[in-house]
């Protein structure tokens, strides 16, 4: 064995740079961190969603106002991001429930179901986005 392969700098501390450029998350890792990110995003966005629910139910005029508001492209884009966050959180959550009961925990299956979660939540986002507008 060569000397270079043995001599590694230890302990290795994680820098932001290492987290972004060096460490490559496996697919299940992506599903996991995106589950967290989408959950946090949905939590802070709830005030906005509740505001829209409140407005749409208060009168016909404000209902139409919100309908117009939701058609503006920055609003539409933000709502679409939240639709994705919800779909991802939903699909990844179902995968975690299966992992809880020891279904799909071997490496190959776990990797495959992660791919399915990422793909299905994107497909659902496109489908719902198309249906809503």
């Amino acid at each position, binding site marked *: 064995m060569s000397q270079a392969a043995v001599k590694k700098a230890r302990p290795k501390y994680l820098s932001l740079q290492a987290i972004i450029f060096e460490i490559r998350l496996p697919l299940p890792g992506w599903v996991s961190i995106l589950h*967290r990110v989408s*959950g*946090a995003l949905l*939590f802070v966005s*709830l*005030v906005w969603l*509740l505001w829209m*629910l*409140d407005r*749409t*139910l208060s009168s*016909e005029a404000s*209902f*139409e106002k919100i309908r117009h508001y939701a058609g503006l492209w920055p609003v539409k884009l933000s709502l679409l991001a939240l639709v994705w966050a*919800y779909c991802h959180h*939903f699909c990844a*959550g*179902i995968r975690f*429930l299966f992992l*809880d009961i020891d279904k799909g925990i071997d490496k190959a299956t776990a990797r495959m179901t992660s791919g399915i979660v990422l793909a299905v939540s994107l497909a659902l986002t496109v489908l*719902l986005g198309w*249906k809503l507008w």
Partner: protein
Amino acid sequence: MSQRIVTGAHYGLSDWLAQRISAVIMAVYTVIAVVVLLGGAPITYAVWKDLFARGWMRVATLLFMGSLAWHAWVGVRDIIMDYIKPDGLRLALQVLVLITIAAYLGWTIQILWG
């Protein structure tokens, strides 16, 4: 193997379980809501208002929001515990999250029955 005896303290099993039960409640509501909203007539103000005037819809939505409150508390608290190390800041953020959740719940009741 862990030698600790799981008794008399809060080991997080109830949080773990609450996270799953609340998730299932929200998932069921979501599937029904999507089917009702996308399967039926176009959503006008009259249709929308009528839907939320029904008692079962109000109760189901409140049940959804109650589940969300519980679910979000466990989830957001986990995030705070993972990333925020200083005790004072952690406590302050947790209190802020609790107040936010309480406000979300109160507002939901006001929207539904107001």
